[in-house]
């Protein structure tokens, strides 16, 4: 009978301590290269992880200092790159020799103004605070796996 299980193989070396940049041989990367760049990557910014594919738009609730519209961001901290059947799990991160992921800052805006109402207990009153969360909008312009 046909097995309905999808084989998901994780390729990693779990021996070394995390927060390193893992580099593997071309042989080990080969199954992922056969996916023909139909892949996703998990990029890290400010300790947050975002799963992206090429052409995605990221709306981040913060600004980066000194960043302007049109700047190109080179993503260095990438912890996972995967296809439908295989996932390359880094030793916390993957070495930059294996990928090329770039994003373009398309807009620096903000969310619409919202009012946060903090109610005190037992109808003792409330305080209103207005907040306008900043947004950085980044378009993933390149996402490719290199041997």
């Amino acid at each position, binding site marked *: 009978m*046909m097995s*309905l299980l999808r084989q998901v193989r994780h390729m990693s070396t779990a021996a070394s301590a995390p927060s390193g940049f893992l580099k593997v041989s071309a042989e080990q990367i080969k199954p992922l*290269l*056969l996916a*023909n760049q139909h892949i996703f990557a998990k990029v890290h910014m400010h300790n947050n992880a975002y799963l992206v594919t090429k*052409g995605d738009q990221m709306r981040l609730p913060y600004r980066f200092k000194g960043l302007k519209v049109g700047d190109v961001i080179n993503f260095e901290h990438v912890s996972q790159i995967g296809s439908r059947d295989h996932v390359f799990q880094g030793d916390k991160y993957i070495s930059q020799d294996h990928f090329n992921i770039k994003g373009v800052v398309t807009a620096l805006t903000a969310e619409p103004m919202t009012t946060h109402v903090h109610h005190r207990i037992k109808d003792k009153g409330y305080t209103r605070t207005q907040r306008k969360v900043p947004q950085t909008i980044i378009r993933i312009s390149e996402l490719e796996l290199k041997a």
Partner: protein
Amino acid sequence: MIRTSRLLRVSRVAVSRSRLITCAPRSFTSDHKPKTPPQAPTMDPTALRYPNSDLSVNLRDVAKGDYLVPGDLARQSPALKTLHARLGLPEALPLSTLAQCLTCPEADTVGEDGRKLADNYGMSVFGGSLLKYHVTEKFVVQYPRLPLPILNSLLDSHLSLRSLTRLAESWGVETDRRSAFERHMSNDSLANTLGYLRYKPVEDDVSNASKDGVFDSYTPRSDVKKYNQKQKKNSQHNYDSQVYVFDSSAPEGYERSAARFVQALVAAIHAHVSRDEALKFIDNFILSRAVDVESLFSFNQPHKEIVRVCAREGLERPEARLMAETGRLSKAPVFVVGVFSGKHKLGEGQGASLAEAKIRASVNALKGYYLYSPIEQTRPQEEGYNGTFIDKGPVVI
């Protein structure tokens, strides 16, 4: 100029001397081929560079006497300069050529000395061919097995008039629908009128112009939104592409003209910079757009088709097998059917009935076959080109 009298003389001579000649059939040889390869007619290079000068007497189709905007006048136009910078056009491309790209044939324009402004017709013809070639090359290499009607649909999604119009709009190109008289009466300097797309509006355009005003950026989103909403409710795919049934109320003249501008721009880069730069421009602006190729397919008899495909490829005859099911006698059954060729699963689909699931499975099998994409994709123009995967052709049901 065609010297008609001489031609007539030649034909009369031919008629009088012709007679039937019967000759014995001879074996195929290459003796009849010309010894030297045919030479292209030599063109005067200076004439090609200065089409408006007197040297262009030999070139029949060059529009003589059209006024090409001089560089210093073009540099006074803010719209032109900002467009040039916004697109990141190379510095070698002068602003006067950009102004020419924005002027469509039959547009009512008047230059400084009363002549008509040079238009983008010739450039758009060349640029359009270059675009079509380059984009076709990319998709034929990327999806070698794609059936021709689907390939054409894919090309249309990138190169149709509407598609190029949307591209031009995304660059912030505005239109100027006024006639030359209106422009003269408004006392605008020539420099201020450059940088806007000028064309001859069709009847719809004229009525729209009087309603909307003069310098308006055409935002046809009102007719798109309605169709978009309708499509989203009924469609299977949540892919938010702009789907159109060609709207007859949208002015035809505007789309053709905006498309001409994009095509002419490609030709202008080719002429002033280099072929490579023009191809890079196409790569960056047109091939970077997204289309869901999978959603372009529509099959009439998918199972019959996959049977024919397998027969041609020499695989075992495909059959549909039930892989999993639930709720057969309930209100919402689910059947998962796979199309198998021997032991290999070609495709899989699920549906509310056995027939539906079988159809979906066949469709997915066919999509898997037609959307094959090789890993090494080198186009013929690139270095290290080693040939492309050539498809066997369409399957006849």
